[in-house]
């Protein structure tokens, strides 16, 4: 394993994109930053600007107004970047999948590297998914 892929694996910076979410997933994402789970052990941190991000974490159902914004944020991320769909709404649409404003699950809009199912997923599930994502680099 080269130095480049090793350092990318050890320092994944996450940008959080919240779609039309019920806020439950957002709270579980914030749980990962608390002393109990502490994602900084693995070099993961939340960044404020998509230019600095390596992972785009999408939660909530994507409706017709969110779709162009999600595409724009995906274009703004410096590559190589990975996309993680978080929660039932991000993976499949969940209970919003038959709504009239629903614009498709995340993987029909942008390529997705990892799915975290659950409503909401536990913080352990997010840690496990990010570790498995890092193993694939």
């Amino acid at each position, binding site marked *: 394993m080269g*130095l*480049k*892929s*090793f*350092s*990318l694996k*050890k*320092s994944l910076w996450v940008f959080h994109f919240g779609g039309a979410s019920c806020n439950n997933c957002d709270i579980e994402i914030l749980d990962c930053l608390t*002393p109990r789970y*502490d994602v*900084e*052990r693995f*070099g993961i941190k939340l*960044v*404020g*600007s998509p*230019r*600095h991000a*390596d992972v785009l974490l999408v939660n909530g159902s994507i409706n017709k107004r969110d779709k162009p914004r999600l595409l724009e944020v995906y274009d*703004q991320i*410096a*590559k*190589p970047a990975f996309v993680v769909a978080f929660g039932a709404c991000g993976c499949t649409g969940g209970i919003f999948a038959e709504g009239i404003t629903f614009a498709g699950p995340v993987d029909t809009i942008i390529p997705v590297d990892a799915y975290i199912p659950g409503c909401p997923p536990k913080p352990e599930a997010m840690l496990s998914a990010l570790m498995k994502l890092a193993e694939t680099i």
Partner: protein
Amino acid sequence: MAEQLFYFFIYPGMLFAGIIGIIFAWADRKVTARVQFRQGPPVLQPFYDFIKLLLVKETILPKNGSVIFFLLAPVLGLFGATAAAVIILMPALGLTSGFRGDIIVLFYLLAIPTLMFIVGALASGNPLSSVGASREIKMVLSYELSFILIIAGVILKSEMTLQLNEIMALQQSQGAFIASLSGIVMFIAALVVIQGKAGMVPFDMAEAETELAEGIFMEYSGTAYAIIKYTKYILLFILPVFIAEIFLGGLHFEGIHILWSILKVLLVLVLMILIRNTNPRLKIGQAMRFYLLWINLLVIAGLVLHYIGI
């Protein structure tokens, strides 16, 4: 010529200051984590971040901005920080004795990285970066006056010596400047000023990640952002060293003094980290009032105390 280039790029300049700065940045994150009862990142975490940004990520150029200034500004900022590092570290490590007036030159060199960050932010053409740049300009206008007053106080206390090496030698023969009341007052003011210069939390409105999304550094990615990170690592190392040199009796690398010198620098660093962790971010108006009124009054009180002879 080769000797000067070695001093500038390898030891004690860019490479050495950067490596120690990376260790200091890890200490910053680790102490922060321990204050919040977390475990914290591994030792090489800032190094991984730097390598990832430098070699792996792509650099996105602004569409509506000036590309030349956008890319040139981080490089010039790094060179300014490195020049300041050489002048600060050479007398401390006993390589040369410096030159007459180098403490005045340092005042200008330490302003270059911040000014270059402002130029880069304004060249990126992003509205949030512009807000960040305007806040950074206000911060520079606020703390530079306090900083020059502190340097004037140090020059007065050292009987009009303008050379860093002689200031350190004077403190080693007559006792450190912090051993007097005026020294303590000016040391507290200097600690707050370097907090603003390093852009740490109570005074980090320019890069407030929660409201401005990293502000002045928002548009930077890849290699350009790695250079900015490296400049910040160097600043995190040389600012505590500078304060230890002018107030805490100077650094002296010989025998048991090596231990004392390292402890002095670490003491200033830990004080900075604890200030950062126990204070919320101020509003820009509060920060300006804090520096322009209270810190300036504190430094002037220190100068008056020095004239009284305490």
